[in-house]
């Protein structure tokens, strides 16, 4: 496991010009189970999506040390994420796909801190699965967009009907996406960043 990186350019004195640490930025990818979050992340990530896990007991941070009352510390929740290097290697964008159920919201609190915003992926067959994500981002003023995944090719709903069903403000961008397509994913991210920028600059 302990794979050693053997990059001759980062070695000794020649490395000094190359020691700056890139700036990380992140976008949260949310939505119900099986809606295509990992597909979306994987379609544009420069690495195969990686999986990281958080212990559920991070929810009880009141405890400084593990004790018997945090007995669930072996229970974890997984998140798949990808990475995109932008600019001249000085900016790295992370995309974190997160489980949508309200009981995982403790994770979201950390994820949205410092995030550009969120892409909520919606499956028209299971609209209700995205309600809690929409509620969450709305309630915290986190910039978000709604990407309706036409994974199965069927566009049985039009966007207006979906917007109405989600009780979504007209200000929130909403569009069809194909989570498998890199260009489609890129456009979704662009729409979010533009939306966040508009919100940031008032």
């Amino acid at each position, binding site marked *: *496991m*302990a*794979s*050693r*990186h053997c*990059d001759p350019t980062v070695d000794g004195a020649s*490395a000094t010009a190359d*020691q700056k*640490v*890139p*700036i*990380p*930025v*992140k976008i949260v990818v949310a939505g119900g*189970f*099986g809606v295509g*979050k*990992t*597909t979306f992340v*994987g379609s544009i990530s420069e690495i195969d999506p*990686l*999986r*990281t896990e*958080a*212990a559920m*007991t*991070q929810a009880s*941070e009141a*405890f*400084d*040390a*593990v004790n018997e009352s945090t007995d669930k*510390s*072996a*229970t*974890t*929740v*997984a998140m798949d*994420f990808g*990475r*995109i290097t*932008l*600019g001249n290697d000085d*900016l*790295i*964008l*992370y995309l*974190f*796909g997160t*489980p949508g159920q309200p009981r995982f919201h403790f994770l979201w609190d*950390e994820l949205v*801190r*410092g995030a*550009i915003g969120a892409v909520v992926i919606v499956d028209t067959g299971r609209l209700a699965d995205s309600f809690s994500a929409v509620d969450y981002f709305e309630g915290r003023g986190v910039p978000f967009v709604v990407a309706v995944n036409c994974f199965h090719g069927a566009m049985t709903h039009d966007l207006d009907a979906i917007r109405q069903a989600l009780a979504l403000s007209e200000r929130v961008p909403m569009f069809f996406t194909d989570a498998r397509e890199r260009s489609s994913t*890129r456009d979704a991210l*662009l729409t979010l*960043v*533009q939306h966040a*920028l508009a919100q*940031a600059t008032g």
Partner: protein
Amino acid sequence: MNDSPYSEPQPRLRIRPYALTRGRTRAAVDIPLETIVRVAPNAPASGRDIGPDERTILDLAAQPISLAELSAHLRMVIGVVRVLVGDLVAEGLLTRSAIQTTNQPDASILERVLNGLKAL
């Protein structure tokens, strides 16, 4: 590719996660998930024994790498990696990316992300 099967958290029968940090669940410094670390130039010699997991972290951090990626490579929960990385940062063995103190990146960073995405 299908979504990952994280509909239900799976109990893992392995070492209790925070055993590696002697029960500490808080890091010495604030380290969000996306924080990028790399081995500090002119890192001081550590005055203690570096454990195997810390050694792996230092090896991986020869190139800039995020806390999330370290967690994935080490197959350790984020909280544990955070404590280990926090110690290494506090000791000056790792440098980390600047910590963002605002809720959202500022407009100049957003512009750079926008331009970067357009160039993809």
